[in-house]
C-alpha cells in the first residue's frame, strides 16, 4: 500500500501536514468561490425582457465591482503566498532531520530494478542487495541516489517525498522510519516500458533485528550439499546467468543485474513483479519477457530438469 496519509516517519509527517494545509486552503477557496457564484446567480433580481439596459455606469468606473475584484485578487495572492511559505517551511523542516549515527545506503536505479549498497567504514562489511531495503527503526538513513541509464525517481510515500535519480548526478534523500513495518516504494518518473513494474519494499525493523539481517546479508552464499542444488550452481556458473549476476562466495561477480547472494530471503522477484516462489522463479528464468516485456534479462533455453536444478540452488540462497 502506498499511502501518503499514514506516515511512518517524521519526513512523511511533514509532507502530510503540508498536504492538509493545502487541501484545507483549497477547499475553503473552492467553497467560497462556489457560494459567491450561487449567491449572485440566485439572489440578484434578474432583468426582464422589457427592461431598458442600465447604462448609467458606462464611461465611469464602477466603484463597487472594482473594489470587490481587487479584494479577490489580493486574497488570491495572499493565499498563494501562504502556500509558498508553507512549502518553504516544510522544506526547511525536511532538511532539519538529525543525521547523527546515520546509516548510509547507496541506491542505484536501473531499467527496471533497484540496487542497494549498504556502506560501512570497514570495506569487508559493505554488502549489496536489490529491490528490498531493510532499515533500522528510529535511526536516520542517508540514501545516496544514482542512475545507471535514464531518469528514475524514488518514492516511498510513507517515509519521504519523491527524489529524482538523474544519470551522471548524485542526489541524497534523508529518511527516518519511526514505526516498524513494510513500506512499498515505486519509481515515480516514467523510465521506459516497465516503469510500472519497478517497485521495491522498505522494511523498517527494530535495530537489533536490522543488525541481524545485515550480518546475514554480509555472509557469502549458503553452501548446499543437495545434488540438484549442486547441479544448479554449476548451471548458474556455466551459462548466461553468470554474465550479469553476482553471488558472493562463487566466481559470479558481475554487476549488471541484481545481486542474488541472498535471493531466497527476498519477498518478490523482478522488482516487485512476481512473488518469490519456486514456480514463479522458474517461469521468470525461462522467459522473463512474458512478465516484463523489454527487460534486459534474456530467456534461458534450458531443459526442464536443469531449470528445476537452477531454481533449487537459487532457492537455497537464504
Amino acid at each position, binding site marked *: 500500500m502506498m499511502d501518503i496519509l499514514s506516515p511512518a516517519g517524521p519526513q512523511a509527517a511533514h509532507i502530510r501536514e503540508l498536504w492538509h494545509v493545502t487541501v484545507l486552503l483549497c477547499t475553503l477557496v473552492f467553497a467560497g468561490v462556489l457560494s459567491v457564484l450561487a449567491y449572485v446567480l440566485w439572489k440578484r433580481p434578474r432583468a426582464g425582457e422589457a427592461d431598458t439596459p442600465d447604462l448609467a455606469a458606462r464611461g465611469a468606473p464602477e466603484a463597487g465591482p472594482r473594489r470587490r475584484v481587487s479584494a479577490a485578487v489580493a486574497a488570491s495572492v495572499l493565499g498563494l503566498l501562504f502556500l509558498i511559505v508553507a512549502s518553504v517551511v516544510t522544506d526547511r523542516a525536511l532538511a532539519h532531520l538529525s543525521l547523527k549515527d546515520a546509516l548510509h545506503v547507496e541506491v542505484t536505479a536501473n531499467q527496471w530494478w533497484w540496487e542497494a549498497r549498504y556502506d560501512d567504514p570497514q570495506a569487508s562489511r559493505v554488502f549489496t542487495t536489490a529491490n528490498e531495503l531493510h532499515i533500522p527503526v528510529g535511526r536516520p538513513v542517508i540514501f545516496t541516489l544514482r542512475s545507471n541509464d535514464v531518469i528514475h525517481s524514488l518514492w516511498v510515500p510513507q517515509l519521504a517525498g519523491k527524489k529524482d535519480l538523474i544519470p551522471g548526478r548524485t542526489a541524497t534523500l534523508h529518511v527516518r522510519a519511526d514505526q516498524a513495518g513494510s513500506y512499498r516504494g515505486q519509481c515515480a518518473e516514467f523510465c521506459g516500458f516497465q516503469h510500472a513494474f519497478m517497485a521495491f519494499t522498505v522494511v523498517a525493523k527494530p535495530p537489533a533485528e536490522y543488525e541481524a539481517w545485515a550480518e546475514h546479508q554480509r555472509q557469502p552464499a549458503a553452501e548446499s550439499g543437495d545434488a540438484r542444488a549442486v547441479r544448479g550452481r*554449476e548451471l548458474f556458473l556455466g551459462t548466461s546467468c553468470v554474465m550479469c549476476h553476482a553471488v558472493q562466495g562463487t566466481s559470479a561477480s558481475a554487476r549488471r543485474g541484481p545481486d542474488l547472494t541472498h535471493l531466497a530471503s527476498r519477498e518478490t522477484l523482478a522488482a516487485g513483479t512476481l512473488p518469490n516462489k519456486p514456480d514463479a522463479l522458474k517461469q521468470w528464468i525461462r*522467459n522473463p*519477457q512474458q512478465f516484463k516485456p523489454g527487460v534486459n534479462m*534474456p530467456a534461458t*533455453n534450458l531443459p526442464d530438469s*536443469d531449470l528445476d536444478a537452477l531454481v533449487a540452488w537459487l532457492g537455497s540462497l537464504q
Partner: protein
Amino acid sequence: MKKLALALAVALVLALAACEREKRDFEPPQGNATAPTQRNSTIQPGQAIGAAPPSAPAMPTTAYTVENNAFALSQGKRLYRWYNCAACHAPGGGGDWGPPLSDATWIYGAEPQNIFLSIAQGRPNGMPSFGSHIPEDQIWQLVAYVRSLSGQVRADAAPSRADAISANKPENRREKETPVIRLPNDGAHNK
C-alpha cells in the same frame, strides 16, 4: 492532384522502409532446449572434462537477421560494455590488448558468421569463448554492433550516441572499411 498522389506514394514508400528499422522481438525462439556445454574455465573454448568433443562447436542455430536493426545495434552496444568486450577491444573498438575492431583488418573473417564463431568459440591469444555464456540472439546483436564499428551497417540504423563521453566518432558516422583478412602488422597480435 497527380503531384499530391506522387508525394503521398513517396512518403508511403519511405515510411514502409522505416518499418523494420527498430523491430524488436519480445519472444525469442524457444527451440529444443538442450543441456548447454559446461565450461570449467573462462579461457578455454571447451566442454566438460571427459565429455566427447562436440562435432561442430558453438555453431549458430538461428539466422542473422539484425544487421540493420537499430534496436539490436544499440543493444549490442550495451552488451559490448556489459560483457566487458571494451576491456580488451576498447570502447568504440579501437583495440588495446585485443585487436582493433574498427579498422579494415580481420584475422578470422569479417562475415557475420565468422564474427559469431569468434565470439562463441574464442580465439587463440586471449579471446575467451562465450558460447555457453551468451544467448545466441545476444551474440547476433554483438555481431551487428561489431560490424557497425567499421561502418559495415547502414548509417540510419547504427548508434549515433553513447551514454558516456566518447573519444571516437559515433558508429553511424564511421567510414565504411573494406575488410581485408590478414594478420595485423602492428606486431602485437600476430604471435
